[in-house]
């Protein structure tokens, strides 16, 4: 799974900490998601979708090995 959370976050001028607070997780969790070390749950993905005002599949994409 690949994602463009970092880009979306930059568009909204949010730091990792700001984004974390907005969706109720820790900054380390945002860092893990951005680094593709952790794939978030559907709930978290939908929270991000609501915040970015974009469908989930616009910033989460399956990689070739998925």
């Amino acid at each position, binding site marked *: 799974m690949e994602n463009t959370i970092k880009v979306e976050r930059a568009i909204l001028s949010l730091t990792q900490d700001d984004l*974390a607070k907005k969706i109720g997780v820790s900054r380390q*969790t945002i860092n893990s998601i951005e680094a593709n070390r952790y794939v978030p749950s559907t709930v978290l993905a939908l929270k991000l979708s609501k915040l970015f005002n974009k469908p989930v599949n616009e910033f989460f994409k399956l990689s070739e090995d998925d």
Partner: protein
Amino acid sequence: MNFKKVSECERTKLESFLDKFQLPNVFKKVGLTVFVLSFLLLTVIKFIDGEPIWLKPALKQFMLVGLLVISISKEKIEDELIQILRSKSYSLAFIIGVIYIMLQPIFDKATDFILGLDPQPNDTGYVQVLLFMLLIQIGFFEVLKRNR
């Protein structure tokens, strides 16, 4: 369907029930204090003669309680990644605990054989096993948390 309902769909009743077993983050320090004090007292009474017979088992129980309180205390931000890491640490502690129980008598016998000692009866008690498993769980959880 609003976000709260979506969130509720993902959580089973059992998960909600398990959440009630968790203590607030402040209890982590309480647990650590109980564990350290019990450990220190247990060390001190080794050098003192004539302590009450109930003191040693009681202090071991307090050590267990301290570790259990640390183990079930929430993090400052208890999010889904932390819950996954916590689950992984419990799985690892369980598996390593079982391996420890299976291998410990073999190690004891091997040590006795190598040192030429008479074989001693296996005295692996539940306190020792639980202390080991809780320490492994807390240790792995901290390692996983740092490497998340």
